[in-house]
């Protein structure tokens, strides 16, 4: 039976030749991830199972990132639970302050993810790793607990959706706009329980970082996973991060592609040559409009960062726009490098100076305001543009505040303009 790349990875980890949509399977996992919100309940459940060890000390990743550096006593206690657990079971990959980062930026950056892997994480944006050709999906804490004990997880094989992007991306239009446009077209449940496969000439030209941004938001369409066939760019990315990545791995996984006659529940085919930067208005990521639609949306804040857009490539775009400019006096611009490495590069490349001179506040890596945790919470009636991935009611603070989602260029330009606009409006 012809298979998509997602089906091939699932089948391999289930020990089957092929799998069909709807089939319930049990899979071996290559990596299990948890953070400071989801790991503590998982640890509590794990202890109830009554096993004396974890399935593999090296395959469990614990990353406190949501409320870190601990914002209050309760969050500090949560991280303490993780730290104790990591010590007790000899878990190697526990990333404290000083080496941490937002989990979904950190793991690809450090070479923890490989093409062909099957990954689960107790965080919905675990789907990010599909950018590297892995089958990767979010689960809850109990699933994480069970997987830490058994190294296995059950799945219902998802149906497949294919998205083909053609044409040439206009200036200032980024990967973020492709995914916002996609969610706008199919809706927040348009891919519920399904796999999203991203392909086409525009995707081949896209950087690996851009693909990480797109896969990251597969969940915003309700998807189980988002995936890209790994190409030369992905293997170069992996080679620069993983020691001893041998050539047989590359050869084997270069063949990891969807069969030409694989079945899709639906295929979307779009020419994106005329696409404008997209902005998702409150309170759903699917509520997207072109940036030029409304020039009167005044802002109180702009946030650049998160697992969606907090990588060095994003910081470079922000710096290009902010160089020699000043943030609007009514706007607070908060920049959150997603990892320590990103922050270091920002310093080396002189971006930090550009940001600070522009009047931005630059934070240590954290999820922070992305989920309304800390480091930039909105008051009642306030409005923020953000490069994050969700704009639900109360997501960044007060239930009566508003979040608009955009790409980095728009968020940076808007911080200078004082209202939502594009870099073109700065001229």
């Amino acid at each position, binding site marked *: 039976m012809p298979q998509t790349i997602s089906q091939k990875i699932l089948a391999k980890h289930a020990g089957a030749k092929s799998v069909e949509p709807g089939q319930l399977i049990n899979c071996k996992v290559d990596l299990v991830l948890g953070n400071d919100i*989801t790991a503590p309940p998982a640890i509590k459940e794990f202890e109830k199972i009554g096993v004396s060890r974890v399935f593999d000390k090296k395959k469990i990743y614990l990353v406190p990132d949501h409320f870190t550096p601990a914002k209050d006593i309760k969050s500090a206690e949560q991280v303490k639970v993780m730290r104790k657990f990591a010590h007790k079971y000899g878990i190697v990959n526990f990333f404290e302050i000083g080496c941490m980062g937002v989990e979904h930026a950190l793991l690809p950056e450090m070479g923890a993810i490989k093409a062909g892997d099957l990954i689960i994480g107790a965080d919905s944006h*675990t789907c990010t790793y599909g950018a590297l050709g892995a089958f990767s999906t979010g*689960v809850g804490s*109990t699933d994480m607990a*069970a997987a830490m004990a058994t190294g296995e997880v059950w799945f*219902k094989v998802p149906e497949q959706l294919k998205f083909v992007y053609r044409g040439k991306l206009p200036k200032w239009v980024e990967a973020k706009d492709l995914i916002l446009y996609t969610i706008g077209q199919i809706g927040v449940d348009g891919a*519920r329980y399904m796999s999203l496969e991203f392909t086409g000439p525009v995707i081949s030209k896209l950087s690996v970082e851009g693909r990480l941004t797109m896969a990251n938001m597969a969940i915003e369409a309700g998807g189980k996973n988002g995936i890209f066939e790994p190409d030369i760019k992905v293997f170069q990315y992996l080679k620069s991060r993983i020691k001893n990545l041998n050539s047989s791995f590359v050869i084997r996984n270069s063949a990891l592609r969807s069969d030409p006659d694989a079945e899709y529940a639906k295929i979307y085919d779009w020419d994106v040559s005329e696409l404008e930067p997209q902005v998702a208005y409150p309170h759903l990521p699917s509520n997207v409009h072109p940036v030029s639609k409304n020039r009167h949306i005044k802002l109180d804040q702009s946030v650049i960062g998160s697992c969606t857009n907090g990588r060095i490539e994003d910081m470079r775009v922000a710096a290009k726009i902010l160089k020699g400019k000043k943030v609007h006096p009514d706007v607070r611009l908060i920049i959150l490098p997603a990892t320590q490495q990103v922050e270091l590069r920002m310093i080396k490349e002189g971006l930090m100076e550009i940001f600070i001179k522009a009047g931005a506040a630059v934070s240590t890596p954290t999820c922070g305001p992305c989920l309304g945790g800390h480091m930039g919470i909105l008051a009642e009636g306030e409005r923020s543009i953000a490069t994050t991935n969700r704009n*639900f009611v109360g997501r960044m603070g007060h239930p009566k505040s508003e979040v608009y989602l955009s790409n980095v260029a728009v968020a940076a330009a808007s911080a200078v303009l004082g209202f939502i606009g594009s870099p073109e409006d700065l001229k």
Partner: protein
Amino acid sequence: MRGHAWKFGNNIDTDLIIPARYLNTSDPAELAQYAMMDADSEWVDKMSKGDFIVAGDNFGCGSSREHAPIALKAAGVSAIIAKSFARIFYRNSINIGLPILEAPQAAEEIKEGDEVEVDLAAGEIKDLTTGKAYRAQPFPAFMQKIIDAGGLINYLKRNN
């Protein structure tokens, strides 16, 4: 189980069910105080133990936080009836033993305040106010086993 219906719309996300600002704890009793907070800040005081949530499509979309079904269960919700559920919320509810019923017609027709009776084993929903009966989508056998065991951890313990 028997109780009153509380109606909610489509795409009720996990930030509405339990806002992230309360996620610095995972204590069920504490989480219960904030259940549905940003959808209706007085709901927790208005509802009674045993009541049902009746909602539209894609209930529980958004984050993977298991705190969402935990908060609802601890608040005393006996089951959620919806047109459809978001994937991770669906998994989490089964894993922690919060009954969920996918029943589009029931979700459409049951009104706020109606008295509802549910027979989980049979997958039957009765609106006692209108006298109408509905049938929920049955679970695949494997999931039913997890539900019968009282959640995934108990299921694993039993099968270890």
